[in-house]
């Protein structure tokens, strides 16, 4: 950007102020209109993108991430749904929930919940809401138990509410006998029962929850407590709270910034101009976000709160400078041109560095973070554009008399204000004790490095809510009573593809030969038929290429023979068919007793981690049904010894009310299995511990079949995106460091100056992250995201400081003589800025979600520290490095500027 462009812009803005203002207003209204119209009347503006809220933590990863593709695939294969979890807890009754009254209410609640379905607006004729068939509740699951000698009974566990205490207690006893229910549906102490409501889609959870809350509103005078949780509920609640945040925190930020500016400048009209810039930038950016079709995620909902303080930043510099200069000129055109002349370049570069900091987030593999970074970069650019055009125009439109009294009285601003005096002394002190400042800095750096090495990477979306939020409370209570409400799934899937026929054919023929030996003694028809089968197998094997296709075709041919068989050969062909069938079933891995026992051992190992409260698998189903078939003794709670016995046990199980339950644990071809792992904690590092425990187990106990174990479920997805975020953030941090450094080297046309510019903010960020490590706060999503962007933001102070240092030094001719002027207006601007900006982010503390609060505290801390370290470290370093920084420094010829400062 050449100086020419710069001045021609300024010329335009100051000469045609009305046109400038109108252009900005019209463009802003247009953007807002394009975003608002389709959101308000989607049917009439179908071509435009409406506002879309996205609260799904899964979307932290893009839809085509392998872990998500696998997750979706497995969810479909095992018919798993997102669930609302309802816990009914009775702490005061001696029988816990298992009293007549509580169970009756639970029964009614279950019946009511089963009807929570509504017509699906997108699919006429279909319904959305609770998936009744897959509900898990005492009155909706099957019990299996002994009934007299040699008889077993399958029946509903609680077909109707009990009438007597004994009946109620019997239900508890039965439920606890069935491992699938114990600690999942009923708690060990009998004080709590759970109700799992699968949903057709997550976004039904809010409606379902509201309906349930209505229903239990009448329970207040009972001793039953009802807790509703589950990830879908948490997600929907995010959505609501995000709006709350945008509606409360953003305006609050405006107000706080306004007050801070008023404190400094005491001129409502002028600071209004900065507020207008902030609003225009924030509104246009959000409009662009909607127009582009991006969703509003927990990250992007913070965009306005970020843009507003940054947008006023440049305006504060202008006003601050104008505040100091106007009294000298008492002529706004001249004053504003002078101000813009001094500030244009630093403002341009600070804007570019801030943009670089945010845009670097596009290097992370996390889409919501990318959107957040890119759109704030755009917003920062818009804010700059408005600042350099609108503010001068605005000032030009103000009648001169309105400015009367604005600014420091000509005199001594340094000595007249507390800040001025304090900064003045600070400057003298730093330069006088440059070495001491640097020693302290080094100590901070060393401590910070230690702190950073202690950082604990961890996140937990449920903890995004404040501790007393109903969701957190429900989470805590239910995890105390049950085996855990955080569900992770472990899929066991076959390794590699189809068996190649070339390998398989000989195996088949060998096994056939051995079988033929067994049938030698039988009737001639059988021997003959098996010979025919052998011939058939040789023939078929020529036409197909996979073992499966081979067996399919063989089976079909046997079927033809069977249908045409004479009475004498019919049985023989049946036997041949059975042989082929048996071969086909060899791929049914999860009927193998060896594999099932392996699963049971694996579950046991996971249970020893201390985080897994409970796990369920097909092995548990087999063991339970086997026990009841064999008379109910604990000794029979085991996997039977033959695959056929497993198959027959499972077929017996499927004669119940819910045959489909089996398919949550194993696919109908018995080639894939899933283990439900219930964790009592949603912390990512706890999930990571479970993952490690499994890896250890598999390393020392390889699976008996060629299987690979792969995790899915939201808890695991969280771990994956966290890992990606950590590495992605390192990348973004590095990227933005390099870009900012290059920009600085370009701005100062010196690598040394560029490096110097990077030092305060590097120390700042290091110190803050070191502190996080030392106090033990989790390095979570907001903390990670802030590292890269704060770099671009915090460098601003160094830019302003160094740019002004160079200008001042050029005038004064020496660094020593520049110190006083530098700790005059430039230091005041930086201080004002750090305060306005830091305070501007604090309203995020009023937001209901913890990540917002973290961002607020964190960024305020970074900005204030960066401001301080700029004013401390830079002058100290310049003092020590002046020989290299100002080679051939000469005594400057005193000029008018110098004289004015001399007066000060």
């Amino acid at each position, binding site marked *: 950007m050449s100086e020419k462009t710069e001045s021609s812009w300024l010329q335009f803005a100051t000469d045609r102020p009305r046109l400038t203002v109108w252009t900005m207003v019209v463009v802003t209204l247009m953007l807002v209109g394009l975003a608002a119209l389709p959101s308000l009347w989607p049917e009439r503006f179908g071509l435009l993108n409406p506002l879309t809220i996205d609260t799904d933590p899964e979307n932290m990863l893009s839809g085509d991430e392998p872990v998500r593709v696998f997750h979706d695939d497995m969810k479909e294969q095992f018919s798993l749904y997102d669930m609302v979890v309802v816990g009914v807890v009775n702490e005061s009754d001696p029988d816990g929930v298992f009293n007549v009254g509580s169970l009756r209410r639970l029964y009614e609640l279950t019946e009511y919940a089963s009807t929570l379905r509504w017509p699906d607006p997108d699919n006429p004729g279909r319904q959305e809401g609770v998936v009744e068939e897959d509900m898990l509740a005492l009155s909706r699951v099957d019990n299996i138990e002994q009934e007299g000698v040699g008889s077993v009974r*399958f029946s509903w566990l609680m077909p109707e509410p009990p009438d007597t205490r004994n009946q109620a207690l019997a239900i508890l006893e039965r439920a606890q006998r069935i491992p699938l229910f114990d600690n999942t549906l009923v708690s060990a102490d009998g004080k709590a029962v759970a109700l799992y409501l699968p949903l057709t889609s997550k976004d039904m959870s809010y409606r379902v929850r509201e309906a349930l809350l209505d229903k239990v509103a009448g329970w207040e005078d009972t001793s039953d407590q009802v807790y509703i949780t589950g990830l879908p509920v948490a997600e929907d609640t995010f959505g609501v709270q995000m709006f709350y945040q945008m509606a409360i925190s953003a305006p609050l930020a405006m107000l706080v910034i306004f007050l801070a500016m008023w404190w400094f400048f005491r001129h409502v009209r002028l600071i209004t101009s900065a507020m207008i810039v902030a609003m225009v930038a924030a509104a246009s950016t959000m409009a662009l976000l909607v127009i582009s079709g991006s969703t509003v995620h927990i990250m992007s909902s913070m965009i306005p709160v970020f843009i507003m303080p940054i947008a006023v930043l440049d305006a504060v510099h202008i006003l601050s400078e104008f505040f100091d200069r106007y009294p000298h000129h008492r002529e706004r055109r001249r004053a504003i041109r002078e101000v813009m002349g001094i500030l244009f370049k630093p403002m341009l570069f600070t804007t570019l560095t801030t943009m670089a900091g945010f845009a670097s987030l596009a290097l992370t593999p996390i889409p919501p973070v990318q959107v957040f970074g890119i759109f704030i970069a755009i917003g920062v650019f818009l804010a700059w554009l408005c600042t350099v055009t609108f503010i001068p125009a605005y000032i030009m439109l103000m009648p001169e008399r309105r400015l009367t009294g604005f600014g420091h009285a000509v005199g001594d601003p340094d000595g007249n204000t507390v800040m001025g005096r304090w900064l003045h002394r600070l400057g003298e002190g730093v330069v006088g004790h440059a070495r001491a400042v640097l020693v302290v800095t080094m100590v901070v750096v060393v401590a910070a490095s230690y702190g950073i090495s202690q950082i604990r990477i961890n996140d937990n979306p449920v903890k995004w809510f404040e501790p007393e939020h109903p969701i957190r409370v429900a989470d805590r209570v239910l995890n105390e009573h049950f085996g855990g409400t955080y569900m992770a799934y472990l899929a066991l899937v076959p390794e590699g593809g189809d068996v190649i026929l070339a390998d398989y054919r000989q195996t088949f023929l060998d096994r056939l030969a051995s079988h033929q030996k067994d049938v030698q003694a039988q009737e001639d028809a059988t021997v003959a038929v098996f010979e025919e089968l052998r011939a058939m197998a040789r023939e078929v094997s020529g036409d197909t290429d996979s073992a499966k296709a081979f067996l399919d075709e063989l089976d079909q041919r046997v079927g033809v023979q069977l249908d045409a068989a004479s009475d004498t050969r019919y049985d023989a062909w049946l036997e041949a068919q059975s042989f082929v069938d*048996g071969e086909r079933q060899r791929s049914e891995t999860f009927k193998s007793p060896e594999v099932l026992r392996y699963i049971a051992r694996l579950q046991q190992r996971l249970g020893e981690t201390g985080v897994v409260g409970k796990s369920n698998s097909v092995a548990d189903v087999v063991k339970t049904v086997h026990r009841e078939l064999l008379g109910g003794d604990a000794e029979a709670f085991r996997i039977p010894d033959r695959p*056929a016995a497993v198959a027959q046990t499972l077929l017996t199980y499927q004669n119940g009310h819910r045959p489909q339950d089996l398919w949550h644990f194993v696919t109908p071809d018995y080639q894939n299995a899933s283990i439900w792992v219930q964790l009592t904690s949603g912390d990512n590092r706890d999930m990571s511990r479970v993952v490690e425990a499994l890896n250890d187990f598999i390393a020392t106990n390889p699976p008996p079949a060629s299987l690979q174990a792969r995790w899915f479920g939201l808890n695991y997805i969280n771990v994956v995106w966290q890992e990606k975020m950590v590495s992605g953030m390192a990348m973004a941090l590095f990227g933005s460091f390099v870009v900012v450094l290059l920009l600085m080297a370009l701005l100062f046309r010196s690598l040394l100056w560029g490096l110097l510019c990077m030092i305060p903010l590097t120390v700042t960020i290091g110190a803050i992250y070191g502190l996080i490590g030392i106090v033990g706060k989790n390095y979570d999503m907001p903390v990670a995201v802030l590292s890269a962007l704060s770099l671009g933001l915090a460098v601003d102070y160094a830019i302003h400081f160094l740019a002004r240092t160079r200008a001042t030094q050029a005038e004064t001719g020496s660094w020593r003589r520049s110190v006083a002027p530098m700790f005059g207006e430039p230091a005041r601007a930086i201080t004002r800025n750090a305060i306005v900006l830091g305070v501007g982010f604090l309203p995020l503390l009023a937001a209901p979600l913890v990540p917002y609060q973290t961002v607020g505290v964190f960024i305020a801390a970074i900005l204030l520290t960066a401001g301080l370290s700029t004013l401390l470290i830079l002058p100290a370093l310049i003092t020590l490095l002046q020989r290299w920084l100002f080679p051939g420094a000469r005594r400057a010829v005193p000029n008018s500027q110098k004289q004015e400062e001399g007066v000060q």
Partner: protein
Amino acid sequence: MSRYWLVTLFQKLALIAMALGITPIALAQDAGAAPEVERIVNRANMVSYFQGRDGRARVAMTITDSQGRTRSRELTILRRDGPETDAVEGGAYLGEQKYYVYFRRPADVSQMTLLVWKHQDRDDDRWLYLPALDLVKRIAASDKRTSFVGSDFFYEDISGRSIDADSHELIETTDNYYVVRNKPKRPGEVEFAYYDVYIHKQSFLPVRTEYIDDSDNLYRRYTALAVEKVQGYPTVVKARMENLRNGGTTELTYSGIDYDLSLPEDVFSERYLRRAPREYLQ
């Protein structure tokens, strides 16, 4: 509509000869209007479950889930009626019955057998033989609306729902069908609010049954897909049950259907569970 469409294997059209004798009288009595609903229901139940002294069929069962994944089973079913006659007037539509189910495929469940003694006035008796565990187990079955071997059919669909369990109402008479609405007398014991059965006017074969839940949604549907004459009588040879909630479907295809085989009563006893009566299973 469990009882009617049960159809499946055992229904033979009532002895049509007898039917021919009765129908004109019924029509004459009602002066051309539909016969009273109880008559239709009784008749349909007889046609669906009680025709002939006994019967046999091979059943190919294909269970398909909403993702198109299929599982196949092959069974042979034998049936023997208590009543000596097929005459509706003689109460043939609600007699005692015994079923013997022999699993052929898949291989790992082959030779499993299931014996059901169906009673009108008390719970059915059921026994199961699991060859791999060498175990015969009596299964207490107070509830007949459980899955029949993992399919979308219920036991009650296979062996028939007691006529007395529901009240019946003829809601429509079309050119081809009587449409009968059935409401349970004890709604707490079943998952439907009511079900409508489309009974073919000439054959009294239920060809479609629609189950409606408490929210007035159709959630389950039976359809007779193919009818053939076997030994002179129309018989459903292919039938489908759809679970409209989870998208599952089960199709049954009958072959090798035979009636009046003179199956001995002792085949339907615990003794034969372990030792399948090969001669009668074909």
